[in-house]
């Protein structure tokens, strides 16, 4: 014969199902923070790209960007020209010294020769 069902049994069943297991309650804060971090990242990524896109949409920024690239290219060229000029000046100085002192090629350094 089946025993009569106690009225408290459904309530007790609900209570057990709602209480998380002990291991689950220990991971809860970590899980919460992970979900928050995921939500922040997913919220940030489209926002950043959208912001960059909106900035590049502005013609003033596009022109400024292109002008900055051009100026940077010119700046690098100036550095290269300056280095080449310094190297050429050195070669000219050596060529001039060799012209006015024919013995220099032989002695390789003028310091060793007595005046």
């Amino acid at each position, binding site marked *: 014969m089946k025993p009569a069902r106690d009225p408290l049994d459904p309530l007790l069943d609900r209570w057990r199902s709602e209480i998380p297991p002990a291991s689950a309650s220990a991971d809860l804060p970590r899980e919460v923070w992970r979900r928050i971090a995921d939500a922040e990242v997913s919220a940030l990524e489209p926002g950043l790209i959208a912001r960059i896109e909106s900035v590049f949409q502005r013609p003033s920024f596009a022109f400024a960007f292109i002008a900055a690239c051009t100026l940077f290219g010119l700046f690098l*060229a100036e550095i290269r020209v300056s280095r080449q000029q310094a190297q050429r000046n050195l070669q000219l100085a050596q060529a001039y*010294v060799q012209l*006015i002192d024919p*013995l220099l090629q032989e002695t390789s350094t*003028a310091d060793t*020769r007595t*005046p």
Partner: protein
Amino acid sequence: MKRILLVVLFGLLCGTAGHFACLYVQQPHLSNDNLDAQLSWIKTDLQLTPAQYARIKAIHEQSSPHLLKLASRVARMREEFSAFERQRKTAGEIDFLEFARFIEERRRIDSDCLLSSRQIVDASAEVLTADQRQRYFTLVPPALRPAPPRIPN
């Protein structure tokens, strides 16, 4: 996204074009062996006036043929010396009379070189101001600089 790529590519294109255009415009096209290039460099380096430049140019144009001739003679002497050295190593002996003649010739050329070099340096220095002269003497070999005045004891 397409617009960003377009702007970035156009910016890179402009930067690269500007870079190479600037390099092409400012690159020197003269040879270093050219006397004019050397004198132009001296003019810039010593900040010569047009009159000074004309005088310096005249001095160098007058002396350079002789100096070039001396340089070729020095090169020939060097080859002769190498020939003596080869002979000494292979035959174990050299013609001492010939070698003595070579030494004498070499002394004479060395002396001529030193004299010609000093003449061109002194003549150029006379055209320059004191500051320019000081700078010029740092460019020439120490052997060609005037000896500092001796202080008597």
